[in-house]
């Protein structure tokens, strides 16, 4: 909301600088997001009078114009088509900020020579100073003709009454305060912390006619329409509203339309009550407030045809809707130039109903924004009186020709609320004395009695929802007292070592190990899209969908980390030869359920689990290089965690197992998939579940060094190329319990051995806990190994 300082000053005396005022407003009431001094735009722009016009010697369309600006006389070159001697113009002095021909950015005006003639200043067109609304130009070469009673040399902002300071208030910071959505409401709060009296809101009693014209109003549901006030006013003459009203509206971001509409808007900005004026001729003398019927439609003032839903509240003329209650009027009852009689509505509608309607229609208006905060129904009367007063000023012939309709049924919860002062002090953490607290509340409009226990009656404008419990009272006292005056203090509580978050610690440990292994951690979005998933040959069926995605790129919740890791490679492949990344993040599984949705039903949320994703990418010199590298990383991780993965062949790489349960995979990105995904390098990705690793994690135990020496024998076999190392190793380990370890150290495939065969060389470690092994013992076992491998794989021992 935009707030005018000049307007506020009508109700409370503000004698501090706008900057200081803005700061205090933020510290006590609402957040100021920006301050704009309107006069700043008009620095060096003044009212001037043309004293002489001469032809430009070198240009037909240009004139040499002498302008009196009070302090001096300036000669300028001007192309204005509507110049005349004696004309009052907007004159930009050297240094003024103007928009050339109404386009582009503001530029500082400098001295110029135009077609050989010097020009020191500029006579402005309205678009050059951002006042095209105030002074609409009929042609491109028209400059502003100020006409009227202006003082030559006066700053334009002052002359036009635009020397105001506008504060931009963050609406979020007053979501809970229906009373603050107006100048008077804010002035009330301001007066308390400025410690200045609040002026009485100007209004005069309504001169109601002795009911010659009947206005009949029928409210069908008083729950959603707790109050409906209306009057019919004749003697209306539609014209532009007073300059002050127009200026104020503009300053607060509203477009002036005509006197009647402007006055209703003006009063809304003044006390926060939205109202609506109908053309009496168009609606007749009957108003009926009811819910919409199925399939009913309305064309709103913005020209949109809108389909209505059953729960939307309508203002109707007995038959068809003339307004969506509290949201927007309809075109069919709009005030226009021919309007001579208006029917003025000042009503209160249920906040929830208005909110639902406005949400469903996607139509948020100044009016609906205020209603949905729960307005005080008492405002209706004040607004009506004030509007009539202002209309009377604009149209002296105006008179109320109906009786005053006031159908109401509302009860406000004004308390009283009991507030224990000691409790209040305890919660604030500051010894604010009882009388100080009471004084603050009284200044805010609360009625207070009692001492140790304050009995607080809530004023109507705070009683709709905002203030209902003692905690709300704490806020009032604390913010006016000043949060800054509360001294910070550490809590006095029992010392206690916090419970350890085992899962988080474990994930941190994994991260540390991977960083040690030279990988870097990346963070990716949880969102993917169908195409992205399909490009990797993954099914997109079980993905959880967003109902309202932001872009087509992010429509699904990820079920694995691979798509983004591949994306990470694409991002980096141009600048980095080797890409080694990992991510630990949540994936979302629709078909499994886990945490409870609430504490009433037994429904559960889709399962979410943290998994580890890894990627290793570089252009391979040899097939399987990246695979081996990434497998090495995983083995390093396993070693550090004291775990052992089993690897089995899968269609696209390997499956990882822990204790015979599949817990992850290693996937080689094939050439075709790589191409589809824009990969220009070879990549291997891996995924690992974290919880199975955590389950198997045990405290490390120290094993003492073997007293008896190990014996290592190197053996090499020629064996079918496709026989897996894992199988060979398992076969060897099975031979004898003296074999403690088998480790491959070389594999050879090539022209020195038969096609389809490989030579595999291994260190075989023999050890015993009981004695020093003899060569003979080991020889026997070794022979057995040779025999077994031959039997099982047709392998033959190869000499070195």
């Amino acid at each position: 909301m935009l707030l005018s300082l000049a307007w506020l000053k009508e109700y409370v005396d503000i004698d501090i600088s706008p900057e200081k005022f803005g700061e205090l407003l933020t510290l006590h009431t609402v957040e100021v997001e920006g301050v704009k001094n309107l006069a700043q735009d008009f620095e060096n722009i003044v009212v001037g009078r043309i004293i002489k016009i001469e032809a430009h010697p070198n240009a037909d369309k240009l004139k040499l114009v002498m302008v009196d600006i009070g302090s001096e006389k300036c000669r300028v070159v001007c192309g204005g088509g509507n110049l005349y001697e004696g004309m009052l113009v907007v004159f930009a002095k050297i240094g003024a900020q103007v928009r050339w021909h109404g386009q582009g950015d503001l530029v500082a005006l400098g001295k110029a020579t135009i077609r050989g003639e010097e020009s020191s200043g500029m006579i402005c067109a309205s678009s050059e100073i951002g006042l095209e609304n105030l002074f609409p130009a009929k042609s491109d070469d028209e400059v502003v003709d100020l006409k009227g009673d202006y003082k030559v040399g006066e700053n334009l902002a002052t002359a036009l009454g635009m020397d105001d300071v506008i504060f931009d208030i963050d609406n979020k910071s007053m979501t809970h305060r229906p009373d603050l959505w107006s100048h008077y409401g804010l002035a009330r709060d301001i007066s308390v912390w400025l410690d200045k009296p609040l002026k009485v809101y100007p209004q005069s009693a309504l001169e109601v006619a002795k009911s010659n014209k009947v206005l009949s109003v029928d409210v069908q549901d008083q729950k959603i329409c707790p109050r409906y006030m209306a009057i019919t006013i004749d003697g209306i003459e539609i014209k532009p509203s007073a300059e002050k009203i127009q200026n104020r509206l503009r300053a607060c971001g509203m477009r002036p339309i005509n006197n009647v509409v402007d006055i209703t808007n003006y009063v809304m900005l003044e006390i926060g009550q939205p109202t609506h004026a109908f053309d009496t001729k168009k609606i007749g003398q009957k108003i009926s407030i009811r819910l919409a019927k199925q399939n009913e439609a309305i064309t709103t003032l913005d020209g949109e045809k809108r389909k209505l839903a059953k729960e939307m509240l309508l203002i109707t003329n007995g038959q068809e809707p003339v307004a969506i209650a509290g949201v927007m009027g309809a075109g069919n009852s709009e005030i226009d130039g021919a309007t001579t009689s208006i029917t003025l509505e000042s009503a209160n509608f249920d906040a929830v109903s208005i909110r639902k309607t406005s949400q469903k229609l996607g139509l948020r208006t100044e009016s609906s924004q205020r209603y949905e905060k729960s307005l005080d129904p008492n405002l209706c009367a004040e607004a009506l009186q004030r509007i009539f007063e202002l209309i009377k000023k604009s149209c002296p012939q105006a008179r109320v020709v109906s009786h005053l309709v006031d159908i109401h049924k509302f009860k406000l919860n004004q308390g009283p609320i009991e507030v224990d002062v000691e409790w209040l002090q305890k919660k604030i953490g500051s010894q604010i004395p009882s009388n100080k607290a009471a004084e603050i509340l009284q200044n805010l409009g609360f009625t207070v009695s009692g001492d140790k226990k304050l009995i607080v009656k809530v004023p109507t404008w705070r009683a709709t929802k905002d203030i209902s419990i003692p905690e709300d009272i704490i806020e009032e006292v604390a913010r006016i007292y000043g949060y800054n005056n509360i001294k910070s203090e550490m809590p006095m509580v029992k010392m206690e070592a916090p419970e350890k978050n085992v899962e988080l610690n474990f994930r941190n440990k994994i991260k540390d190990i991977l960083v040690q292994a030279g990988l870097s951690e990346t963070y990716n979005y949880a969102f993917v899209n169908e195409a992205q998933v399909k490009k990797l040959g993954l099914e997109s069926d079980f993905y959880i969908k967003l109902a309202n995605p932001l872009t087509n790129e992010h429509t699904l919740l990820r079920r694995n980390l691979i798509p983004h890791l591949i994306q990470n490679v694409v991002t980096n492949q141009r600048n980095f030869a080797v890409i080694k990344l990992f991510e630990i993040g949540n994936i979302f599984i629709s078909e499994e359920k886990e945490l409870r949705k609430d504490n009433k039903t037994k429904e559960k949320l889709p399962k979410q689990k943290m998994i580890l994703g890894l990627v290793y990418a570089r252009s391979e010199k040899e097939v399987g290089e990246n695979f081996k590298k990434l497998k090495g990383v995983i083995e390093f991780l396993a070693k550090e965690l004291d775990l052992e993965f089993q690897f089995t062949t899968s269609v696209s790489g390997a499956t990882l197992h822990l204790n015979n349960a599949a817990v992850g995979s290693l996937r080689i990105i094939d050439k075709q998939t790589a191409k589809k995904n824009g990969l220009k390098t070879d990549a291997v990705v891996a995924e690992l579940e974290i919880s199975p690793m955590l389950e198997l994690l045990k405290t490390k135990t120290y094993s003492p060094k073997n007293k008896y020496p190990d014996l290592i024998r190197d053996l090499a076999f020629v064996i079918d190329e496709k026989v897996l190392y894992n199988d060979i190793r398992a076969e060897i380990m099975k031979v004898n319990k003296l074999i403690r370890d088998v480790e491959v150290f070389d594999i050879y495939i090539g022209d020195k051995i038969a096609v389809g065969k490989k030579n595999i060389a291994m260190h075989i470690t023999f050890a015993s806990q009981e004695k020093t092994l003899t060569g003979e013992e080991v020889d026997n076992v070794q022979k057995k190994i040779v025999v077994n491998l031959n039997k099982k794989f047709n392998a033959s021992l190869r000499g070195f």
Partner: protein
Amino acid sequence: MKNKLQNLKQEVLSQLAGIADIFDIEKVEKKYLGKKGELAAVFKELKSLPEKEKKAVAQQAQQLRDEVMDKIVELKNKFGSIDEKDGFIDVTLPGVKIEGGHLHPLTQVQRDLERIFLSMGFKILEGPELESDYYNFEALNIPKTHPARDMQDTFFIDQKNKAGEYDLVMRTHTSNVQVRAMEKYGAPLRAVALGKIYRNENIDASHEHTFYQIEGLMIDERISLANLAGVLKEMFSGFYQKEVNIRMRPGYFPFVEPGLEVEMSCVFCNGRGCSVCKKTGWVEMLGAGLVHPNVLRAGGIDPDKFQGFAFGTGIERLAMLKYGIDDIRLFNSGDMSFLNQF
């Protein structure tokens, strides 16, 4: 002069005897044998001595120099210094590159925050990123029709409940952990929850739809606004490793009453005013307040006996201020030229 030489000798020998490593040798060598060393000074002084004395002293000094040099060579051998036999090494050549990995800056910031709060006795909690409407809104005193729902643009999951409503959301804040934690642990409770949150808003250099928050919750029998201020001051001071002041002002969040916005004294200009604090000396950092009694009740905690404070803030913001990062999108970019800097 003779005496002086005697003393010098004793001094050198005792220092040589006390040498414990190779670096000390160089020091002693420089002190006594260097161009500006003590022995050089003795030789200089010789010139001013009477002729007959000169010869004897010179001889003695020479002797001492030889003795020291021998001793130093002996020591160098003992401690294994490099000489020509070992070959030449250009020590100015770069070393062999070690390719270390890097932790994401947000992980580092989160760990730092966890460290601070663990040390104050706070548990570290986590919660689901895909959350029910109940824990994300309802239980936090934000019913369906509440205008505060507009304050956070929500991603809904395309899955309706029996009443035909979307009741699953991507959590819009880490505050969803509040009531879950109360249900699990009851009161008193001291916990922070860190994690990813989601907002349905367009992204630019300062806005993200996916970011991280830290939520703090402390419930006990006597918890005040003053305590909130104390803990937050500790958090910021601990995080930026300097004395930081905080400033509280009214703010609105339905799950706290009173609600506060908290500003931190600018850590860049120490409050003098700079571009980061927009010349105000204060930087808006977080939302906070005293836990609303309705929220305590939702968590099964008696608001007449217990009270508490809660706060929440974006972790990216802390990181951006700490490291001078100017674009929030970098955190999720996966760009190694960014990641490798941390």
